């Protein structure tokens, strides 16, 4: 265990620990990209990383600069068109885990990466869906990694780009959405799971040195806290060593 780590580093480590060996992971841009690469290097060498640009079974020698980096191609299992990725891998149901981020996440795990404010007249125009909307619908489970603040965790997102549990309960299931939806949300303050019945986000682990008060101040609704609240394990020496090899100039993990 080490004490000298950044918030992003802890988030990435938490997310990496959630992946099971052998799973097929659809990897998104940003922190998810680092988390999955970390997991493959130190915990789960047999996972298959799939990138929407058209790579299955990536084995990058450096941290990919983007999700279309040439290092994803060299030594990969297969390179194919984007239509193959979306139709044959994702829509066919071959993806175990979708790894996503977003500008806003709400109480029921809905993700907004489109606009802040009204769509027709936005306060902030965000990048948009990319692959996320289809991934959130078609991956068997979804892990969300994002920084938490009152603005980024509102009770209801301004725009549902990628559906979580919508209004909660059985709403997602009733639409016939194939994937089971979000399972875990990792933030810089803690880790959340979802209630099996209400589908509401519940704080299940709090990061070292973070008080519940701080979690409450940085979330837009009265969040439920698990009766078995745990304290998140700090990054291990091995995790940090590998992260600093992946991001030597700490561009992504400030």
């Amino acid at each position: 265990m080490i004490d000298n780590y950044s918030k992003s580093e802890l988030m990435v480590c938490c997310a990496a620990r959630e992946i099971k060996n052998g799973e097929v992971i659809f990897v998104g841009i940003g922190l998810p990209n680092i988390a999955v690469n970390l997991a493959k290097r130190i915990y789960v060498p047999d996972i298959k990383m799939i990138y929407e640009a058209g790579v299955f079974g990536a084995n990058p020698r450096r941290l990919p600069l983007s999700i279309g980096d040439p290092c994803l191609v060299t030594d990969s299992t297969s390179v194919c068109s984007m239509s193959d990725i979306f139709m044959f891998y994702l829509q066919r149901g071959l993806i175990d885990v979708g790894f996503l981020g977003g500008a806003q996440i709400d109480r029921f795990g809905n993700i907004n990466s489109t606009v802040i404010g009204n769509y027709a007249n936005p306060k902030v125009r965000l990048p948009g869906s990319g692959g996320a909307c289809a991934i959130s619908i078609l991956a068997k489970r979804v892990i969300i990694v994002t920084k938490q603040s009152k603005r980024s965790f509102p009770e209801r997102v301004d725009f549902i780009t990628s559906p979580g549990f919508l209004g909660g309960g059985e709403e997602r299931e009733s639409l016939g959405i194939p994937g089971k939806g979000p399972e875990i949300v990792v933030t810089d303050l803690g880790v959340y799971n979802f209630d099996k019945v209400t589908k509401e986000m519940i704080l299940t682990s709090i990061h070292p040195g973070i008080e519940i008060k701080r979690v409450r101040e940085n979330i837009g609704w009265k969040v439920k806290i698990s009766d078995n609240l745990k304290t998140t394990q700090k990054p291990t020496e091995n995790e940090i060593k590998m992260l600093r090899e992946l991001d030597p100039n700490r561009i992504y993990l400030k």
Partner: protein
Amino acid sequence: MENKVMTMKEAIERFVHDGDTLTAEGFTHLIPHAAGHEIIRQRKKDLILCRLTPDIIYDQLIAAGCAKKLVFSWVGNPGVGSLYGIRRAVEKGIPKKVEVDEYCHFGMVCRLVAGASNLPFMILKSYSGSDLPKWNNNIKKITCPYTGKEFYTVPALNPDIAIIHAQRADRNGNTQIWGILGVQKEACFASKRVIVSVEEIVDEDITCSDPNRTLIPGLIVDAVVEEPFGAHPSYVQGYYDRDNEFYIEWKKISQDEKKLQEYFEEWIYGVKNRDEYIKKLGGDKIKKLTPKGNFSKPINYGIYL
């Protein structure tokens, strides 16, 4: 046989017209930047620009006033942040108002697959529960005649012109690509006209020696342009790496309208063609971006008499 080999200037003059629906594809890899610069130099206007990921190439085209509409599924400077040329046009109408027509990647892929297959639309298992269909009337629903289940649909996209960059092609336009393939094949088959720029024009016996690698047949290609380093600042697998310093630098340039104009004057209007651009870029930069070789093992196709 008709000669398809020409300069970029001629290809853009002949095949790109004001008001065209245009797609310049390439997912991070093989982005046809040389063609983008030539379109700006020729001051084309009112283009409907389609692309899954409008990145620096469309930021430049839109900031230069070439477009009236953007059809897309993810807009940003990949790995870096926002694109300010596009944001100024969409949010403030500078230099002119640009409309947006927005999908998810899977939706854009399906639009091109439908277009390439000469079908009116495509069904897909996306959009359920998302707000995107509420704001885009092109995303509709249909009941499956076999199962009775409902599916979302997207309409075919059939651009007037597709422009792509590739490693190599022969003089007939048979085009070989390796590395990340994006949606180039779908975009070319969906479009009425196709311009291909390549790192190298090779003899037909080279392309025919490895037909599995030919993604786009000359049958649908109108123009072949030899344009080494034509994808810079993006990359070409096996030829050069992405110029990530420029991607980071672009943020500062596109944020500031004065810097943006200076960039246009210096790197687009101030050079005649890609050759001059590369000379200006300099040998050191090119050397720095060139990867070490890593060749695939040959395969045996056999001779059958």
